[in-house]
């Protein structure tokens, strides 16, 4: 293992971390799933009305 105890390495800016855009994609998909489940109740209610 490297020595992670040393203070955070400033050279690797997390801004350039490609994992972050992938993470954002995951987050958006999960957010849409949640909204979809919530919305489904009201879609049904409206269709039934």
């Amino acid at each position, binding site marked *: 293992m490297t020595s992670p105890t040393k203070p955070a390495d400033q050279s690797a800016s997390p*801004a350039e971390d490609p994992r972050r855009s992938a993470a954002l994609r995951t987050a958006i998909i999960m957010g849409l799933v949640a909204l979809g489940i919530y919305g489904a109740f009201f879609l049904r209610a409206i269709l039934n009305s």
Partner: protein
Amino acid sequence: MAEHATHDTHDEHHDDHQQSFFMRWFCSTNHKDIGTLYLLFSLVMFFIGGFMALVIRAELFVPGLQLVHPEFFNQMTTMHALVMIFGAVMPAFVGLANWMIPMMVGAPDMALPRMNNWSFWILPFAFTMLLLPLIQYAFFGVGAGGPAGGWTLYPPLSLQGGNNVAFTIFAIHMMGVSSIMGAINVIATILNMRAPGMDLLKMPVFCWTWLITAFLLIAVMPVLAGAVTMLLTDKFFLTSFFNAAGGGDPVMFQHIFWFFGHPEVYIMILPAFGIVSEIIPTFARKPLFGYQAMVYATASIAFLSFIVWAHHMFTVGMPLGGELFFMYATMLIAVPTGVKVFNWVSTMWKSSMTFETPMLFAVGFVILFTIGGFSGLMLAIVPADFQYHDTYFVVAHFHYVLVTGAIYSIMAATYYWLPKWTGVMYNEALGKWHFWLSTIFVNVLFFPQHFLGLAGMPRRIPDYNVAFADFNLISSIGAFGFGLAQLIFAWIVIQCAFLGRGAKATDHVWEGSKGLEWTLSSPPPHHSFSTPPVINDKDLAHGDVTH
């Protein structure tokens, strides 16, 4: 969107630690600081909810009505549950996730740090909303008080409250948004931010249980939100979702609520399983027995938790086929749960154990949670549940799984990681006092409730037949003893976290601890793993999955 991703990477300028108090805590995007906020919030809520519990037990000390009005008593039972579930247990687990998951998987922070800040800061507002009607009533004599229809919010009863209905529903929506955002962050962090070489099946079990919990949250929090939105429109906007007079169905609320509610109880116990699976191997100095079995058992429990909800409504008048289905499906959960219990026991079997406070709470968890599992199995039997339903037997059941289950795991986790978080070793002697007093009194408190339930004492009532007097007296004594013991816990935390009093903790803290978090200093630097660590399988707690 890519723009967004860039902006979330807040941290560069924060390293100097020269931020103002406001910037550090209110505008925090650091997973460790946000974890601390969640944990402190949870501790405060634990004491508020605990105070309500003591009001309940004080009233029930002897038969008759003495301290509070029945209406206020009902507000206490309702608010106690809501505060403990949504304010104490869930935020504590999210706090632990925030602190530990990035360090365990070798990520620099949670995947979406600014959303993380939002997830937390919604909560104080949500709980102000929730508590406001009660505070107004209790301290200023204004209004009719908080919700009193039970935490399950069954209509039509729950809609007969005054304006507190709107406050409660608004608060629940906010808590739901907070939980969903927290869950999204956990999923994105685990799926996308692991250090190279940290394969999914090398992750600590705590990360696995939280990943699965997060999927449960995303699946069921919107269901709760849907249910309470319909309550809201029924009360204020003339709909009749649950109003039979308007063509609706009150039993439908129960189905929707418990479709959320049963997975919710697993949301409160799966992370606990993860914590115990971290602690037992450390103090047994042996790798976890059956790592993969643990992961698959967690996934099966999560799946089954979606198909057992109606065991909460056996007495509502379901068709026989429904009763049988939900009975057998419920009993099936005992199989993966048993796998877990046997794996913990096998980990301890022929190991070299020591019993520091985290281990005491973990072993206490295994034994006492299992008692709650057994009473659960009894409740799963339809004809038996016809007798037990809505009695103190149910109260005893869920307090064994929640107090000696979920809360014990949170205590265990706190003792286990507090030296890592603060750099200060807690007072071991006080920790042991806390454990033993809690464990004695929690059983004095909840075990007699089994007998009360079997004898027919209903739950949620402020007065009772004199036949139930003895066990209620014992139970109330246990409650005050347990409550007092928790002051020791608060004092221990204050000593480490705020006063810095105690021996300096080493980086490894425990002799048998393994995993990435222990390679960091105690306390860890404000930013850890900005460069992903190199993963060396034999240093991981569960790197070698052939065990």
